[in-house]
Structures are given as C-alpha cells and as structure tokens.
C-alpha cells in the first residue's frame, strides 16, 4: 500500500467504497506495482480477497507484500485470502487429467469456450460463510492480469462475459469491489486486446493508467499515472485539477509528483 497513492485517490483502508470496478492499465511499462498496492490495501482494510494471479508465483507476491507490510501466508491461513496461482495450476491442469473441473480447465480444451469454472471458483471463494468468529468486510476480486487469458486462447468476448458475471456477483450482489489489470498493447495492433480494454473501460468506475515516458527510459521518473474517474461531473473546482502524475518506484514505496516536478530535476 502506497500512502501517496491513497492520498491521490482520496481513500484510506478505514473507509472503502463498495461496488466499484477499478481498471488498472499499463502501456509501455509494467503496472504491477498497482496490483501490489491494491492487494495490500484491501488486505489491510480487512476485506476478504480473492486473488487470481496468473502472471507471477505466490512467493513473489508474498515477498513484495511483506515489503508493503502484509503477509500473504498468514492472510491465506486465516482464510482472508483465496489465492489462485495460475502458473502452478497450469502445470497441474495440463499434465494431470483430473476428474473435477479445475478453474483453469480451459487450458486443456482445444478451443477454449468460456470461463465458467473460473467464475464459479471466484463466486465460491467470496461467498460469505457463517462462521461468526471473523467477519471480513466487503469481498474483493483481484485479477493479474486479464491479457494473459487472451494469450491462453480465451476470446476477448469470453473474458468480458466473465467480468460481467463477476460484476453481477461481486459488485452488485455482495457489494464488493473488483480490481483488474490489463495491458495496453499500444501500437502492436492487438485487436482482441483492444476489444477487451475498451469493453473494460466502458464498465469501470475508476481507471488508473500507467504509461511509460514518451521520451524513453529515465532513471528518476519511471512513468506517469493517469487517473480517470468515471462518475457524474462535480460542480466544484475539483474537476479541473490535473489528474496526471509522474511516479518513481522505490524499494518499498512509490513516490508521486506533479508532471515535471521530479525531485531529481529541481
């Protein structure tokens, strides 16, 4: 959790908005720091988190999480975190034919039809249980990242369907939140990815877009973050505030500053 990003978004772990879909998007850079932010944010906010991690291993997220002040292993033991490790399960799914359908069953299928098993996994994971002892706050679904699903042969429409179902279940029914990451392929002309990204942008309430600098690599500025609120226009002067920031990723945090005001420049 990066406190500076919380300030920009005007949130704290104490008061979490509910029923929102947040789209994280990265173009020409790596936006995974945003995933780490939201993962630690919601774990600290005592939400029940279902994390579909398709791109990295559990140890990676755990070690980075520890740097940000949360332990994924304890969260998983306490039942707060449901972790689906895509890389590990892909091997299991591919090499061992199991009877019961796996959430990533589509890896075995010749033409991957739908993501229904994955949706059912999410729904089951976030279903409130009447244990009484530990009541988590609102459920949260986190996906890193949706573009991988396209690479694994799932069509863009199927992914959008999956997101729609999840929204209906998580955001509306359970009054929870969703955070998904998708790559912006930029000039690679990836049509499916563009369909996916446009569809997601259309549905989401908040878009955080991390972009590499147009001028190329820089040691002191790693990229810029654009914040786009999709909500009814506010009458106050808040609207014309610039919502583009530059950032620098440090070992355990990310510092944000206004465009061109990097401490290294001044």
């Amino acid at each position, binding site marked *: 959790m990066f406190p500076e990003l919380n300030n920009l978004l005007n949130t704290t772990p104490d008061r979490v908005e509910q029923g929102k879909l947040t789209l994280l998007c990265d173009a020409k850079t*790596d936006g*995974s*720091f945003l995933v*780490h932010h939201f993962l630690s944010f919601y774990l600290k906010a005592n939400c029940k988190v279902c994390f579909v991690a398709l791109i990295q*291993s559990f*140890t*990676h997220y755990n*070690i*980075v999480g520890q*740097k940000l002040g949360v332990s994924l292993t304890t969260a998983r033991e306490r039942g707060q975190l449901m972790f689906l490790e*895509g*890389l*590990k*399960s*892909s*091997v299991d799914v*591919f*090499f061992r034919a199991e009877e019961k359908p796996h959430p990533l069953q589509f*890896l*075995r*299928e*010749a*033409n*991957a039809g739908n993501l229904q098993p994955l949706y059912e996994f999410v729904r089951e994971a976030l279903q409130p249980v009447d244990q009484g002892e530990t009541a988590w706050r609102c459920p949260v679904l986190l996906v890193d990242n949706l*573009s*991988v699903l*396209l*690479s*694994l*042969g799932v069509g863009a429409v199927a992914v959008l369907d999956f997101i729609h179902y999840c929204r209906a279940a998580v955001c509306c029914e359970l009054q929870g939140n969703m955070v998904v990451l998708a*790559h912006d*392929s*930029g*000039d*690679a*002309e*990836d*049509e*499916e*990815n563009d369909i996916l990204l446009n569809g997601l942008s259309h549905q989401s309430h908040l878009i955080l877009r991390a972009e590499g600098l147009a*001028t*190329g*690599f*820089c*040691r002191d500025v*790693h990229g810029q973050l654009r914040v786009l609120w999709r909500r009814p226009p506010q009458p106050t002067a808040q609207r014309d505030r610039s919502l583009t920031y530059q950032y620098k*990723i*440090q*070992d*355990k945090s*990310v510092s944000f500053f206004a465009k061109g005001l990097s401490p290294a420049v001044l």
Partner: protein
Amino acid sequence: MAAVGPCGTGTGSTGSVAAAASKNNVTSFQRRGPRASSSDSGGSRLVSIAGTRPSVRNGQLLVSTGLPALDQLLGGGLAVGTVLLIEEDKYNIYSPLLFKYFLAEGIINGHNLLVASAKEDPEKILQELPAPLLDDNCKKEFDEEIYNDKTPESNIKMKIAWRYQLLPKMEQAGPVSSSRFGHYYDVSKKMPQELIEASNWHGFFLPEKISSTLNIEPCSLTHGYIKLLQFIQKIIYEEGFDGSNPQKKQKNILRIGIQNLGSPLWGDDICCTENCDNSHNLTKFLYILRGLLRTSLSACIITMPTHLIQNKAIIARITNLSDTVVHLESFIGSERETNPLYKDYHGLIHIRQIPRLNNLICDVSDVKDLAFKLKRKLFTIEWVQDNYLRQERNIYPPGFSYLLKQKDSAWGEGSLQHSTFLMSFLAKATAFASRLVRHSEPLKQTGRGRIRHAAGPRLWHDGRRQEAPGLLAIPS
C-alpha cells in the same frame, strides 16, 4: 600452431577434472578456491550448486548465461526458474552463439542439459559448443611445464613469481573472474570431447519424437509443443529438479535450451500467415513452460525467429509471457552496415525486458546503446557511445563529451532532452568563451591572451598581430 594442440588437450583434461571433482584440483592456486567457497557457503543452502550465486538484489539464485558481459546487463545473471528469450537476428548468425554459450557454461559447471531442436540433432549442437578459456589453472600449468623444460632450477622460482605478480591484474581485467560463475569461450575452438561425454544431457529432436503416434486426443496445442512439454516435465520430475520432491542426490541445475521455437519446423504456422487459427499455441506453450520452470531448479534459453512472425500482436504477447527478452539486430544487409558510427560492430543488442522478481523494481541497466562484435575468438558487447564519443570529440567543445557520457545514458540519443541539453551546453560554452575574451584583455601587455594563444602558433609568431591589442586573432 604446434602449441595450440597441447594447450587444447591440457584445457580439456584439467577442465574435466574440475567438472567431475569440482574443487580438488591440486594447483598452486588453491588460495582462491577455499575463499570463494567459504563466502558462498555463508549464504543459503542452495549455493552448494556449482556455477550459481544468489542475486544481491532479490535473493534469487542466478546462473550465468555464459557471456559475463550479458550477465552484467541482466542484473548479475539469469535467475533460476525463468526464461531467457533471444529474438534472433535476421539471418540467424549470432543468436546460435548465445545459445551455445549458455549450454557450454552448463557443461563447464557440471549442470544437466536439455537441448531441444527441430532443425539440428542435439548431439550435433553439443559437438559444436565453443571451448572454454580457463585462464588461470590450466594455462599456468602448461606454462610451467614449458619453463621446467627449458630453464635451470634456480630460474623457475623467479619465473613463477613473475607470473604470480602478473596474475591479479589479468583477473581484474575481466568483469567477472573465471572462478566459478561465468566463463569466457573461444568460438574458434570446439569444446573438448571429454567434457561433453562427462556431462549429463538429454536431447529432444522433434523429427525423432513425432514419428509414431499421430492419433492423440485433440488438444489445445501443436503436437510438437505437447511432446516437448511432456519431455521436459518427465526430465524435471524423474531427475528431481522440482523443488517439491526431496532430492536424494546433490542438487543440480537443469539448463534447457530450445532452438528456433515458433519456426515452421515446429509445426506452428504463426510464421506463415497473419491470421492463423491457433495463434495462441506458442503463448500457451510459453505459459506452461514457465509454470514448469518456476517450480524447479532450471533455467531456460529460447531462441525465436520473431522477425518471421507476421502478427505483431503475438510478439507483444510473447514478450509479456517471457521473463528476460534480448533482441539481436545484426547489421548484415541493413544500411547501418555502411554507417561509419557502427563500423567496428556487427550489430546491436537490445535488452527488451528484465523480470521483476520478488521486487517492485527491476535491475535495469543504465546503459542502453549496446552493440556486439564477434572477434576472432570472443563475442563481445560494448557501449556504442564510446565509439560515438571517439568520433564526435572533434566536433563538440571540450568537456562536452564527458557530460554527454554522463547524461546520455539516461536520455536516448535524439530525444528531446538530449537536444535540449546540447543546446544549453552550447549556450553555456559560448558564454564561457566570451568571458575568456574579457579576461584576456588585461593580459595584453604581456601579449599572452589565451584566445590568441589558442588560435594557433602561426599567428602568434606573427609580429604584427602581437602589436594589435584588443583584436581577437582573426587572420585578415
């Protein structure tokens, strides 16, 4: 030429001893070995594996790519459990070298190898690995033998002492000394046969594997990819490279090399048409391969003819699914071949992607403009800027080249910052020059204005110019 023969065999014999019995070769240079091993054993228990070291940044175990210069650019080496993707150069001349370096490094360190190809027999690939340049142990022994033959006893000690004095300097010259991690290879010589025979390797030659059964279940992958994945999985589980099963034997690294992945020989059609039905075959293969690697003590190098892939979107997806991506761009057939700036090089090397492992940030090297050169024996990577500076030194004002070197590594050449900086520096330089003129005026009674002095000795010796005060020395 007579000297080359015995040197080669000498390299082979000591090298194989080193590979087989790792640490107990009896040379006069025992000093370095124990020190290195003791510092290593202080780390995690995994470091008992030869040819690995833990990363300073993220604690991951690293193996060398077989090219110490490339190791440095990738943040110390290739992390175990990750994929290194080499995007081949257009005529596939230089990328096989990197492939062979990676395998040769595995043989020297006694790692297990898995070589997969659809084009060449893996055994043939292994036969053509380059010979290692083990600069300390074997050569010294060889040299000492010569001295033993020729010189009287009294002189030997002096000679040896003289060589000892030279030695540390030679080791410091290289970025990574030839101790345990990263070796240099001589591409003009073949790897000694004994070393290859001593190594433990598995070959996957697609035409041999694909011959028999074609009646498999309709699955989501191309047949060749399935076979390869099953083969890799079998090796990893049978030989105990996966971390889950406790290993009885000494832990070791599996180095996987896959040649020309994605080419039509693998049965993939992404190189042939832009809109093929099974365009996600390759990405799916990479994903499952990555899943296999992440749970095992293995590292993988893949060379891929990305220039053949018609659909740019697939290349972007492949990059996202690999860990480290290095692109080779050779000058053969391009207009850069005739560009004087690049006349000393054979191509450019682009580091496209560095993985983020256990960390928010990755080890991005500050140096961006890298070129490679294939010398007679060595494949070297250099900073183009050095050559650039050598050429431009006469154009830019003094001092500018130094500043450029400082700044330009972060600013791409031709970028906005670069040109802005150049303009501002030139403005400053002009101001500085005019200040010089002012300062030189009070000195005119001595006749030693710095500007006129700089203007050239011919004008200075001209008597009339000397008597015209206040004038900048401009020949009429």
